[in-house]
């Protein structure tokens, strides 16, 4: 987006990373100064003010991309109850609240695009991602609901469902076949935002993979490790 000369504002944590990204985006071609504001997905009370700040800086945003989230292995989530609660809150309830704040603002001005990163982990309950996937499933459901209700009013919802992408989040995990690179995923997502595609599997092969997974009967799912 920066290379296209768009105006951007980034929210997240920690603030040093935001500033480094902002400088990078400005150098790559973003229009004007790229504003930053610390905003923690674990603190829903801060969402309203953060979005207002972004609104002011950009003169009214028309696209919101939500990529924030927590990740942990199923083993960790089963044993660390506190972290599990945090992850479920951040990845589902709080993300939904954030999206609600964002979409209300955009609808008030006639529309816009809400792009949020869910995951193929939310397609159906699966052994290695029971908890992580459950939160993502909730998010995907919510986004689909938004699509049904608000598209006619100008709000375009894009749900990105990455399979396995080689990023810091997946650092240390063994990449399966069809693992994606962030650059390729970014290109795909940008195309989807431009076209208003409601659901994007990234890399695209995962659409086929999940189609197969979704159609497997329970007795098979109980036996396999995937």
């Amino acid at each position, binding site marked *: 987006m920066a*290379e296209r000369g768009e105006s951007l504002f980034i929210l997240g944590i920690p603030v040093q*990373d935001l500033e*480094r*990204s902002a*400088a*990078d985006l400005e*150098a*790559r*071609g973003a229009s004007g100064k790229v504003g930053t504001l610390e905003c923690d997905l674990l603190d829903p009370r801060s969402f309203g003010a953060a979005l207002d700040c972004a609104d002011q800086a950009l003169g009214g945003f028309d696209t919101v991309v939500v990529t924030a989230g927590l990740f942990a292995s199923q083993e960790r989530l089963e044993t660390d109850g506190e972290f599990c609660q945090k992850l479920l809150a951040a990845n589902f309830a709080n993300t939904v609240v954030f999206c609600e704040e964002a979409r209300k603002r955009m609808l008030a001005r006639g529309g816009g695009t809400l792009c949020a990163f869910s995951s193929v982990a939310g397609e159906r309950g699966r052994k290695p991602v029971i908890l992580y996937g459950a939160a993502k499933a909730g998010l995907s459901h919510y986004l689909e609901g938004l699509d049904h209700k608000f598209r006619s009013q100008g709000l375009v919802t894009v749900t990105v469902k990455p399979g396995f992408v*080689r*990023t*810091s989040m997946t*650092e240390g995990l063994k990449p399966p076949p069809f693992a994606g690179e*962030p650059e390729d995923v970014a290109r795909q997502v940008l195309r989807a935002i431009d076209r208003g595609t409601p659901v994007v599997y990234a890399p695209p092969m995962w659409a086929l993979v999940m189609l197969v997974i979704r159609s497997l009967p329970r007795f098979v799912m109980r036996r396999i490790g995937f």
Partner: protein
Amino acid sequence: MSELSGWGRFPVVDGTERVSENFEVATVGAALSRGLGRSYGDASLPVSPMDIVANSRRANCLLAFDPETGVLRAEAGLSLRDLNRIFMPRGFASPVSPGTQYVTLGGMVASDVHGGNHHVAGTFGEHVQSLRMRVADGRVLEVSERSEPELFRATLGGMGLTGHILEVEVVLERIPSAWIYQESRRVRDLDDLVETLLGLSRQWPLTKCWFDSTKRGPTMGRGIAIAGRWAEPGEAPAEPPVLGERISVPYLPLGLVNGLTVSVFNAFWFHKESETLKTGVVHPKAFFWPLDGVRHWNRLYGPRGFAQYQCVLPIERDTRVVRRFFAAMTRRGCPSPVSVVKDCGPEGRGMISFPKPGISIAVDVPLRGAKTQALIDALNEIVLEAGGRIYLTKDSLTRADHFRAMEPRLAGWNEVRRKWDPDRKLRSALSVRLLGDEA
């Protein structure tokens, strides 16, 4: 734990890579840094699976750019491809372009890469103003001619062994357009090759020569000489060139590169070039990085992989050394589809950097065990005799005693390493094989 190798896919070792956007943190306790892995041999490989390798490729933020001076500061993992994509449309390019865009800034400094303009612009390191590095004792410092000049000069071309390069500050070249105006012509034989290349270099900023390494006898050294310069705005198309997609070579169970296929390919490549001089505006990809158009071209050599070999031969004292080299190479058989000759200019600041005045010859060789080792040994004997040296970034087969004899600068450079890294925390498979480190 995964398998790591250079571009030649030989040797292959087991190693652990840490990849993170936060490269500064990833380098803590790491024995070596690695970028996109385009060095051919063992330069970016760990000595053992216990040695951690910090991979920089995701640390690719631009930190600052001044359009008045052209000074760019960026994280070491920024690739030349990204740099070109962002800056060429704005009228800037890297001051030195190696044969592939799939290299990181850190890698370009560690190898102190050179390009077709070496005879006028020197190596990449000559345009680097400052580095931010993590040295062996863990400190992070700014390193330049002003602060730590000795470490700076040891790091340019220092194969990553003086510290982890975190950020690079380099002066970009202002270009009139992103297109290249090129002139190319056939050269009949070795004498014609050398004479034409030196002649072209007197008039053009970018020159190089491809040659057919399978030809012996009177046509030995025949090839295609290429000269170029950035096109003026009036000559070039108005839109900037699109650095597009590429075709890909799948994993091949067998190598396709052998004496026969290379002879056929080389003959085709030579004859496709017309007899007469060809001039015109070309896409920069076709001029600088033709091989980048074929993804995974190294797979064409099959699972055995291949070796690259590059040396520079001084010619002031003895102009016939190039002929002796070519004769030895072609007599023993060197089926290389990618063979390049370049005339190098003066030495730069890098303490053990490769280029020095003379003729540089680079060839790809499929690996045939003892035969290939014998070829490399024989060529190294000639290089040694002529007072030349080899390019570490390409090397996988040179013997330690040959290298030590070629490199009187090694002792001085190792002294600097001893000062900054007395416990030899930073080391690579290359440093153990050739530079005196213990395994």
